[in-house]
C-alpha cells in the first residue's frame, strides 16, 4: 500500500465523522466521502498532497454532497448555509477541529449499530472507519464486489431507518456501545486470523486492519481500559502469525511453532498495553484473554508454559460468562497443568453441553490429551472424527496429518 493510500485510509473516519456530524445523513455523507477519496487518490500522486489534506477532503466531499442531495434535504442544507453566510467547508472545518474525537467515536458507534447484522457491522466498519474500498472488503471476504456493495447499501439503509445520526448519549450508554464496537473489531481480527492463508501480500489483511482501527480507537478513548486490553490481545496473538502457518498455508500448532519467529516487538507492545489496562481498569474478558496470550508468548516451550496460571485465568474468564470455548480452553489448560486425564475429565463434562458437545474442537482437544497420555489408538480415532467435522480446510488437513503420523505406516 502506497503512502497516499495509507494517508487516505487514516483520514477517512475523520472526514466522514465531521460530515455526518454536520449533515446527519450517513448514507449520503458516506457516498460523498468515497467520491472525495477517489478524487484524492487520482490527483494527489501527481499534484502532491495538499497542506491540509483533511480540509481538502472535507471541501471536496461537501461539494459532492451538495451536488447529490436533492429535494427537501438540499433545501434544508441551503438554508443552513445561507443563514450562516460562511462557506460550508469553513463551518465544517471549525467543527471538525473541535469535535474530532467525538465525531470519530460516534462513527464507530454508528457502524456497529445493534440494528445491523454482524456481517454488516464488519463491512461498514471496514469501509467507514477503516477507509477500505468496497472492492478491497469484497476481496478480503472472497465475495463478488456487487454482493459486498449490496450488503453495504443495505447496512446504510438500516442506519437511515434507525435514525441515521449521532445521538447525544450519556457516558454509561457510551460505554455499552463501546462494548459493541470492541466485539466487531474482535470479529474482524478473528476473521483475518483464522482465514490467513497464502497470498497475504495482495489480499487485504484483516488482522492488521483490525489492529490499526483498534489502535486509532485506543487513541481516542485513552481512558477505556478494555480498548487497550483488546489491542493487547490482538498484538499478543498476531505476534505469532509468521510461525503459525507453513510454506503452503498449513496450520502449525502452538507446540510445534518456531518460537524464534514470534514478533518480539509486538509482544513487548502488547504486554505493556496489557499492564496499563490492568493497572487502570478491571480484568475484563479481553484483558484475561490477553493475559493468557501473554503467558504463551513468554514461554520458551509448551512444557515450560505457566499452565497453572492459565487455568486460573480461564476460571476468571468463565466468571464473566459461561462461554463454551472458554470452558474448552480451561479443560485443555487443566490437562497440561495437572495430568492429561484431569483435562479429559473436564472435556467429558463439556461433551454434554449442547452448544459445543459435538464441536470438532472438543474431539481435537481430547485427541491431543490422549496423545500426551500415550493412548495413541484412541487419539488417532478422535483426530479423524474431529477432521470429519472440521469446517476449515487447513484445520482438517492438520488433524488428518496428526492422525496419520500417529497411526504410522500401514
Amino acid at each position, binding site marked *: 500500500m502506497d503512502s497516499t493510500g495509507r494517508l487516505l485510509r487514516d483520514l477517512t473516519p475523520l472526514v466522514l465523522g465531521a460530515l455526518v456530524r454536520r449533515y446527519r445523513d450517513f448514507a449520503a455523507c458516506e457516498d460523498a466521502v468515497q467520491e472525495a477519496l477517489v478524487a484524492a487518490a487520482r490527483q494527489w500522486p501527481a499534484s502532491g498532497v495538499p497542506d491540509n489534506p483533511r480540509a481538502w477532503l472535507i471541501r471536496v466531499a461537501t461539494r459532492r454532497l451538495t451536488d447529490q442531495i436533492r429535494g427537501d434535504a438540499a433545501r434544508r442544507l441551503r438554508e443552513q448555509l445561507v443563514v450562516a453566510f460562511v462557506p460550508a467547508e469553513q463551518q465544517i472545518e471549525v467543527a471538525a477541529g473541535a469535535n474530532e474525537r467525538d465525531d470519530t467515536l460516534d462513527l464507530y458507534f454508528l457502524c456497529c449499530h445493534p440494528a445491523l*447484522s*454482524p456481517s454488516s457491522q464488519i463491512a461498514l466498519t471496514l469501509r467507514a472507519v477503516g477507509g477500505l474500498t468496497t472492492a478491497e472488503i469484497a476481496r478480503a471476504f*472472497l465475495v463478488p464486489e456487487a*454482493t459486498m456493495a449490496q450488503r453495504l447499501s*443495505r447496512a446504510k439503509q438500516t442506519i437511515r431507518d434507525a435514525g441515521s445520526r449521532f445521538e447525544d448519549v450519556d457516558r454509561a450508554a457510551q460505554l455499552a456501545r463501546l462494548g459493541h464496537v470492541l466485539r466487531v473489531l474482535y470479529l474482524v481480527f478473528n476473521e483475518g486470523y483464522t482465514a490467513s492463508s497464502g497470498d497475504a501480500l495482495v489480499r487485504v489483511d484483516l488482522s492488521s486492519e483490525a489492529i490499526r482501527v483498534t489502535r486509532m480507537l485506543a487513541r481516542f478513548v485513552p481512558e477505556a481500559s478494555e480498548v487497550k486490553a483488546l489491542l493487547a490481545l490482538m498484538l499478543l496473538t498476531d505476534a505469532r502469525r509468521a510461525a503459525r502457518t507453513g510454506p503452503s498455508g498449513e496450520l502449525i500448532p502452538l507446540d510445534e511453532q518456531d518460537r524464534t519467529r514470534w514478533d518480539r516487538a509486538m509482544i513487548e507492545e502488547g504486554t505493556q498495553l496489557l499492564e496499563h489496562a490492568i493497572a487502570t481498569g478491571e480484568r475484563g474478558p479481553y484483558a484475561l484473554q490477553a493475559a493468557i496470550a501473554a503467558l504463551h508468548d513468554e514461554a520458551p516451550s509448551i512444557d515450560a508454559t505457566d499452565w497453572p496460571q492459565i487455568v486460573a485465568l480461564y476460571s476468571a474468564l468463565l466468571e464473566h460468562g459461561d462461554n463454551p470455548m472458554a470452558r474448552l480452553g480451561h479443560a485443555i489448560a487443566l490437562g497440561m497443568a495437572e495430568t492429561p486425564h484431569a483435562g479429559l475429565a473436564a472435556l467429558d463434562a463439556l461433551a454434554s453441553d449442547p452448544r459445543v458437545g459435538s464441536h470438532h474442537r472438543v474431539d481435537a482437544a481430547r485427541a491431543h490429551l490422549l496423545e500426551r497420555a500415550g493412548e495413541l489408538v484412541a487419539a488417532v480415532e478422535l483426530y479423524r472424527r474431529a477432521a470429519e467435522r472440521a*469446517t476449515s*480446510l487447513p484445520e482438517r488437513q492438520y488433524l488428518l496429518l496428526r492422525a496419520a503420523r500417529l497411526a504410522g505406516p500401514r
Partner: protein
Amino acid sequence: MKYLLMMNAPGKGPYEIMSWSKQDLEAHMAFMRGLNDKLRKTGELVGGAGLTGPEQAKLVRAGDRGEPITDGVFPEAKEFLAGFWIVDVETPERAYEIAADASMAPGPGGEPLRMSLEVRQVMFDIDPNG
C-alpha cells in the same frame, strides 16, 4: 459462512421441465429470477449456475497418459444436479431457509415442486485472483 445449495432434479433422461407448458415454464423461470433478485438484494448471493441436463453430461477421468477419457452415457442416478447457488449467510438456518424457498419453485399447474436441495458448508474458497 458460505453454503453451497445444490438443487437436485429427478434423474433418468432429459429434465422433465422440457415437456412443461409455456405457462408453467414461465412461472418457474419468473420464480427463479425473483429468488436470485432477492438474494442479490440481501447481499447474500456469491454465485450460482443452472446446469444442462443429464443427457448432455459427461463423466471424465484421466487415462494412462493423463489424457481425458469421457464417458458418453451418464450412469443412472435417482437425482441429478440441476443447478446451484453459493450464498454467504450469518447462520446455517438462513441457508436452510433459502433452500426451502428455492424448493418452492412452481412446477406444472403452479404446484410447488419441492425439489430437494443439498446444503453443504463451504470449507475453503478458491480465490479466482490467485
